[in-house]
């Protein structure tokens, strides 16, 4: 009896592939699970199925402004926030001052996109756990935002709306009316979502005390956004490292408190996203009031973008976390190197750390709670 057979008999492990076509892995992600019965001993995520060489293309393109449509395609669920980060980086390199009206429109549009992205994250999380209806309620609301975007930018998902130094086109005439009306109708819907899903006992049973991410591990893994805030760290780039005009608005940062389970579990990450919806509404209201009416959105757009030699790391708060662009320019019109540091890539690398010992059903809620988008992971 060689030792080999002994340990195989003792440990009847089964290796299962969850994905890349698995219905609940938010896109093309393959998780190799080593199972002992229902309990997961080891998780190894395999990525790269959606790798479209964003960074290689950014170097091939002849112009900084031609990269913008490609930043949309990284995290296609929150396209505006990807553009916002990139555009702020280039403007900081060219030291361009953007008119106030543009800044306000950018903040409103970014916050609307944050709500739309969170709605998808929350809906998909509920859907993974079997709650089909909240998913569709979230999407009905999301459609209203996409309608506003369609009237303003012309597109529904990938907008290419921001240009370096301004916007591609001005907002449509009753933009303010639509936005305030949306804010008014959306607020009660958050309460309805809470009653239907967030405080539903079965949902709590499925998400509390699961996938606990302690604060130290979160910081060491450079988690950011709702995942970091879910573990109790009060860290939001809009407040801690303010960019654009976020310092003019007052809003607070919801943080996980371990209300139903331990601090940093799936439920905390989820409830942080739900409470962020409310904060985004507050920002939108203040921004819509403070938005100056006159001012041409295209005046500060430079004819040719040729930044001086140097490099810069700009980071913004995308709905999934800290989105950073590391841009190196060598004085020519071609970008020398653009590295996109995307939050989902980092959060997915944490998956093995927080999900060993969980059950298969928990694996689904852990993946749902870190709300990853594979376009952003693979770039």
């Amino acid at each position, binding site marked *: 009896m060689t030792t080999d057979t002994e340990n195989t008999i003792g440990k009847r492990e089964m290796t299962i592939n969850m994905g890349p076509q698995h219905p609940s892995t938010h896109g093309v992600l393959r998780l190799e699970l080593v199972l002992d019965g229902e309990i997961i001993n080891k998780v190894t995520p395999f990525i790269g199925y959606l790798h479209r060489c964003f960074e290689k293309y950014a170097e091939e393109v002849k112009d900084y402004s031609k990269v913008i*449509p490609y930043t949309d395609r990284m995290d296609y669920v929150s396209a505006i926030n990807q553009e916002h980060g990139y555009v702020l980086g280039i403007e900081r390199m060219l030291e361009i001052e953007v008119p106030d009206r543009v800044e306000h429109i950018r903040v409103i549009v970014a916050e609307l996109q944050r709500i739309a992205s969170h709605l998808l994250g929350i809906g998909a999380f509920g859907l993974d756990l079997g709650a089909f209806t909240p998913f569709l309620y979230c999407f009905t609301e999301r459609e209203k935002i996409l309608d506003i975007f*369609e009237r303003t930018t012309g597109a529904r998902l*990938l907008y290419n709306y921001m240009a370096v130094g301004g916007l*591609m086109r001005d907002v*449509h005439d009753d933009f303010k009316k639509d936005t305030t009306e949306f804010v008014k109708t959306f607020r009660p819907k958050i309460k309805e979502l809470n009653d239907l899903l967030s405080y*539903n006992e079965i949902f709590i049973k499925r998400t509390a005390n699961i996938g606990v991410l302690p604060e130290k591990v979160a910081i060491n893994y450079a988690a950011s956004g709702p995942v970091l805030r879910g573990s109790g760290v009060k860290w939001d780039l809009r407040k801690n490292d303010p960019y654009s005009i976020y310092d003019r608005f007052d809003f607070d940062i919801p943080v996980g408190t371990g209300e139903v389970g331990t601090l940093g579990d799936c439920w905390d990450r989820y409830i942080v996203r739900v409470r962020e919806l409310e904060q985004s509404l507050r920002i939108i209201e203040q921004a819509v009031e403070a938005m100056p009416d006159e001012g041409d959105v295209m005046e500060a757009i430079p004819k*040719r973008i040729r930044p001086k030699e140097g490099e810069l790391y700009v980071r913004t708060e995308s709905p999934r976390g800290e989105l950073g662009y590391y841009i190196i320019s060598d004085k020519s019109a071609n970008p020398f190197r653009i590295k996109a540091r995307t939050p989902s890539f980092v959060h997915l690398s944490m998956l093995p750390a927080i999900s060993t010992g969980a059950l298969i059903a928990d694996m689904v809620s852990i993946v749902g709670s870190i709300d990853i988008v594979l376009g952003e992971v693979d770039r």
Partner: protein
Amino acid sequence: MLNDIKVGWRTFRSIFKGMGITFGHLFSPSVTLQYPEERMELPKGARARLYVNIDDCIGCNLCARACPVNCIDIETVPSTADVDLGVTSTGNPKRFWLTRFNIDMAKCMYCDLCVHPCPTDCIYMVPEYEYSEFDRTNLVYHFSNLKPDMVASVKVKAEIEAEEKLKQKEELARQKAELAKKKAEEQAEEAKPKSDEPAAGDPGKDIKPETKPVSDESDKDESKPETKTEGAEPAADETGKEGIKPETKPESDEPAANDSDKEGIKPEAKPDNSDADSDESSKKENGE
């Protein structure tokens, strides 16, 4: 056991609250749009399909250069002196025959980057979203409205014109060279060697007069068909901006497919499906 009962009670309460909400939604109106009967009309500025008003196009190629995926393919032939192509609606004089203006809508990603640089605003996006095709080649839209024989004759004329211009230029160059030689001899006689050579920009660089408008985008008013005249840009960025020089493409074998000129308000730029012959597709009312 007590805790279980408390959890059980909370479970029931949250279940009944949830069921109350869904029961309420049972009677709220549905948001579905029955597609073929009830259609979603896109707002005015929706970016759904590219359309080029070919009469206003001056062949400046700025849109082809701005497109990140290079899905716009333009072939222009300089118009000879005797033909006056008239003026676009925005007052720009037209100096090129547009023998081929294809947009491959299958490659287009609707990023709207081509619409902004156009000096005459002749390329814009039309809110029409029902243009799917069975055959992918049908998605290549041919916007130029010159018939194949017209294209051939224009090209021939352009060739002749180009040779004449070439001859004139060589003559000019020869005269200038003689002048310079004479002057050099005089200076040699005064035994004071002149240090400067003749100014740069010797004319022999470009044989065919490239159809290059002044590349300063903002300069809207006229597009001189001279050879490339650079402003104060240092030569270093030459390659950067001139990457895609739209000089005339090597003669593509298939005759430029013409048709699908679009009159009328509703742009129906329906391409004919085969490149070989170019009869009007059924939707066009103005047959040849």
